Structures are given as structure tokens and as C-alpha cells.
């Protein structure tokens, strides 16, 4: 028996192919994280039944919903631009679902009023969607989706249409709003921060495939693709491990590079370390750093209170150093420097 949500989504549209297996437990929030056009929203629409599968299955709570029509699926969906019915008040929007499920008018309105209250929208119940702010409209859309008591809640880019300050609020309060919801939530986002903060599990989707699935901590610490590594801000390399040394896959004609590890490993491996673990020297360093490569400065940019230095290798990597260090080393584009990383800072895991 699979997890509460157990989906294998396979479909193609023109040249685009989606082939994604997703799983999440009851009460969990699963984030589909990926670049634009990766197929996240298509996956969500496939879960909802809005686009048909060509193969695979969708099971929710042990029940097969693969061929269930949209209106009978145990789902609630919040669309990217909310799609609140413009001719109905907020309350009528939220009461719409319960009415469709057979609740009488009074019951439906009572449930809708309760949800709006929970989401802090009691005073906007009679407002038309056109008079609501983006954040309020989003909460009405969330209330509307929750009102049908779904077992699978689908949120399509819930942050995309919000301004920055509303985003912060939604990030902080979404969990509170989902209190009392005991199904699985699937959230689509291209923002790694949303995924890290909101989700219990992350599935990284690239070009229609799930390239990595795990907890936010796992994904942040052990990215599997260059895209994820960039999102979580890590230097990532593919290579082959033998003992405490990984030989990185050669980039073109360049000479091979070796990375020393804190512990032995074998076979195809991924090597990751954060830019702040990289120290830069103008002379070959001696002593503790075990990995030292001669590289050239490719670019320098501000990054918080640090400076991110892009280095052309092999290996190509990023280093975060203090503004003082930049001044001291006199870093300019094209300059040769030595980059050092302690073996203890290197994370190595199977490819």
C-alpha cells in the first residue's frame, strides 16, 4: 500500500512529456518545486482531473481516483489567480462547493461563514471579489477550496500573484489556516523559499520529471541537480568516488579535478559544499584546507552582507567572502586565485 497520496502522472502534450511519481502522507504539505514550464502546474491539473492522464494512476487515501470526473474527486483547488466567481459575494463563493455537494442553503452558508471567520475574513463576507485585496481574495479562494472538505488540497503558485509583504504574511500563516485540514496538500511553486518554509516534502520537477523528492532539509543539503543546487545555493559536482577521493567528471577538455572527502565512499557520487566554505588565497595555502584548486575570478556580486565570487575552474564554483577579503585580495575579473575547501565541509552522496 502506498502513501495517502500516491500518484503516477504520465501524459504528453506536443513535445512536452510529464512523467512524475508523487507521494505524500496525510497532513503533509508536498511542494512541487521547479522552473517555469517544468510541468508543475500540469501535474497539479492532472491530480485534479482537469487534464487526462495517458497512463499511471492517482490514489487518494487508498481509493483509485484515476478516472473519477473532476466534480467527484475529493479535491479542493486554489488557482493561481484565484478565479473567484465575480458575480457572487465572498460568502457565496465559499458556500458554492457545499451547495454542489448537497448541503442546504443554511448549512452551506454556515460552513462558509465559519471558514471565512477562521481565515480572518468575517467582515468581508458580503464583499464581491472585485473589492478584495490580493491577499484577501487568496484567503477566500482557500476557504472555498477547504469548504468542500477535500482530502487533497491543490495550491497552484499561491504566492505568485501577491505583493512582497502579503507573501511574508501568507508564508507565516498558511499552516495556521490549514489547521483542521487532515488531508494532503500539494503546492506548486517556483520559489525555493516557499517550498522550504511551507512544505514537509519537496518534489523537484524539471522538464516533466521528478528529479528529486525529499524533506526540505535533505533537498537543501544534498541537491541532485544543478537547478536545485543553484536554488539552495550550493556548489554541486558529479564524479566518481574511490576511498576518500572523488574524481569529478571532466568538463570538456579540461584536466580532471579531485575532491577529498571527510569519509570514504564508492562509485558514482555527488559532491556539494556551500559557497561560504570556500576560502580564497592569493598564494597557494598551506595547512588545514585539504582541497585546493587554482581558479580565475569570473565575476563579483553583492550577496547579503557577503560578496559572492564566481570562479572559473576547473572546477567552476562560487565562493562567499567578506567585503574585507575582497579588498585585501584586490579581486578583479580574470585574476588567478587559489580556492580552498576543508574536506569536513564537503557533503558526498550517491548519484
Amino acid at each position, binding site marked *: 500500500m502506498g502513501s495517502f497520496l500516491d500518484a503516477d502522472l504520465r501524459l504528453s502534450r506536443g513535445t512536452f512529456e510529464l512523467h512524475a511519481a508523487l507521494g505524500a502522507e496525510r497532513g503533509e504539505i508536498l511542494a512541487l518545486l521547479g522552473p517555469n514550464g517544468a510541468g508543475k502546474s500540469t501535474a497539479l491539473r492532472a491530480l485534479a482531473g482537469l487534464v487526462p492522464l495517458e497512463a499511471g494512476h492517482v490514489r487518494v487515501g487508498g481509493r483509485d481516483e484515476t478516472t473519477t470526473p473532476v466534480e467527484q474527486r475529493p479535491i479542493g483547488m486554489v*488557482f493561481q489567480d484565484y478565479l473567484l466567481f465575480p458575480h457572487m459575494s465572498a460568502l457565496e463563493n465559499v458556500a458554492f462547493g457545499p451547495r454542489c455537494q448537497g448541503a442546504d442553503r443554511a448549512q452551506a452558508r454556515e460552513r462558509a461563514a465559519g471558514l471565512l471567520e477562521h481565515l480572518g475574513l468575517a467582515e468581508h463576507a458580503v464583499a464581491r471579489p472585485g473589492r478584495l485585496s490580493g491577499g484577501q481574495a487568496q484567503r477566500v479562494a482557500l476557504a472555498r477550496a477547504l469548504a468542500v472538505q477535500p482530502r487533497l488540497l491543490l495550491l497552484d503558485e499561491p504566492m505568485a500573484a501577491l505583493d512582497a509583504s502579503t507573501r511574508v504574511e501568507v508564508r507565516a500563516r498558511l499552516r495556521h489556516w490549514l489547521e483542521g485540514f487532515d488531508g494532503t496538500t500539494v503546492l506548486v511553486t517556483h520559489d525555493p523559499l516557499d517550498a522550504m518554509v511551507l512544505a514537509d516534502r519537496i518534489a523537484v520537477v524539471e522538464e516533466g520529471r521528478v528529479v528529486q523528492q525529499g524533506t526540505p532539509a535533505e533537498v537543501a543539503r544534498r541537491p541532485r541537480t544543478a537547478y536545485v543546487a543553484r536554488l539552495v545555493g550550493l556548489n554541486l559536482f558529479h564524479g566518481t568516488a574511490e576511498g576518500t577521493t572523488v574524481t569529478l567528471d571532466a568538463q570538456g577538455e579540461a584536466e580532471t579535478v579531485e575532491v577529498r572527502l571527510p569519509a570514504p565512499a564508492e562509485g558514482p557520487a555527488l559532491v556539494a559544499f556551500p559557497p561560504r566554505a570556500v576560502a580564497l588565497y592569493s598564494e597557494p595555502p598551506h595547512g588545514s584546507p585539504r582541497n585546493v584548486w587554482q581558479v580565475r575570478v569570473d565575476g563579483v556580486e553583492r550577496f547579503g552582507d557577503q560578496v559572492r565570487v564566481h570562479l572559473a575552474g576547473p572546477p567552476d564554483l562560487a565562493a562567499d567572502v567578506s567585503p574585507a577579503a575582497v579588498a585585501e585580495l584586490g579581486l578583479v575579473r580574470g585574476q588567478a586565485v587559489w580556492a580552498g575547501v576543508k574536506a569536513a565541509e564537503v557533503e558526498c552522496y550517491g548519484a
Partner: protein
Amino acid sequence: MTAVPPTPPAAPERRRLRARSGRLPWVLVLPAVAAVAFLVLPFAGLLISAPWPDMGERLRDPEVLSALWLSLATATAATVVSLLLGVPLAWLLARTEFPGRRLVRALVTVPLVIPPVVGGVALLLVLGRNGILGTHLDAWFGITVPFTTAAVVMAQVFVAMPFLVISVEGSLRGADRRYEEAAATLGASRTTVFTRVTLPMVLPGIAAGAVLCWARALGEFGATITFAGNFPGTTQTMPLAVYMAMQRDPEAAVVLSLVLLLVSLAVLVTLRERWVNA
């Protein structure tokens, strides 16, 4: 601040900065003016030659009133029938795929292009007492359609419903279908989606179509006179009354035309403000 101009730039100076769009091309302006004149002048003529002194008396003529009442009633009935049949047809054409959909769409628009008289003849051939269906209606139910008020309504529906169907189909195609998807994820059946979401959202389009349909029905002449005849009180609508009056008393024709014009304008203006611009 060193080089402050002594005075703020004057208005003419600013105007000189605006790029000029060139002279209006007379090849376009002259025909346009002619078009407006051609469309507006007949109305002016109608107003000028109207027999204003005895207008009140003429308007109280029972024949005028009965023709006016018949026209309003039949045009409204034809619009209601067109809405009841035409909106579902428009939905089917806009929202579903069925074999022969394109053919059906083409057939629906035929009454738009054929002369209404031809429509009247066709209706008579099918529903006339000796017509293909009319024979059976007469033999089995004793129903005779032609030359009744019902025939007036049918003739009007025949020529006017396509306007409604085309207009509503257009607004259905233009409507954002994602609202319908949202309704479906909330558990709404296709019927509920239609009545509670689609219909309210395309209401302005339906209203516009209904106005178009009503106006067309009000002005219907050819199909009506062929299929329903010209009997005062039962089938003589305003356009027929105008035509008849023209033969014996042109001043009466002017009065009737003015009434028809005012009624059409009043309805169009009222509905436009209420629905179309909403």
C-alpha cells in the same frame, strides 16, 4: 540651480512639441461623411414630414394600437422562444465537440443570409396546411399554423434566432473557461456550472444577443407576410401596417414609422444602459 529659464514655457510652445499626425485623408473622410448623411437624413425626413398637428388623434387609432401591441407581443415572444432554444444551442456549439458541429453551425447561420421571403415560403412548405409537417398537424391534432399569430412568432424566430445564437456563442467562446474548471473542482455538475457560473458571466452577451434578436423580430416583414399573411389584429404587425398604410394614406405610414422608430430606440437605449455597458 544656475540656468533657470526666465519664464515657464508657454502653452503654444508646448503644443509645438507634439508630433503632428498629418492631414486627414479626404479619400476616407468624404465617403464617411456621405455614409453618415445617408444613414441619418431619412430619419430627418421622417421627422419633417410627420403630420404633427393631428399626431395625437392618429396615434389613438385602434388599428395603429393593435398593430403596435401585436408587434411588441410577438417580438417579445419570439425573443423568449429564441432565448429558450438558442442559448442551449449556442452552448452546444461553443462548448462541446460533436460530429457535424461545423455543419450545424453553418446551417444555423443560413437564415441570416437568405431573403426573409424565402424563409416564409420554406416555412409555408413545411408547416402549411399541405406542407410536409403541416398535413400531419392538421390531420392528427387539427392544428393549423399558417396565418395565425403563432405563425408570426415562428416567422420572427426563424429570422431572428440566428442573431442570438451567433452573439451568445461568441460571448461563450470569449468567456474565461477556467471559472468553469474552478466550479468543477468544487463539485459542480456540468448543468450547475452552466446555470450558476457560465450563464451569469455571459449575461451581458446574452442580453446583447436578445436585444439584437428582438429588434430583428420587430422589423420582420418578408417571412411574416408570406407565412402569416396580413390580417389586422392577428398577423398585421407594425411593418406590415406601415406597408399597407403607404398604399392608401402615406401620412399614416409616416406616423406608424415614427412610432416603430421611437419604440426601437427606447428599448435599445434602455437595455444598453442596463446591460450592455454594465
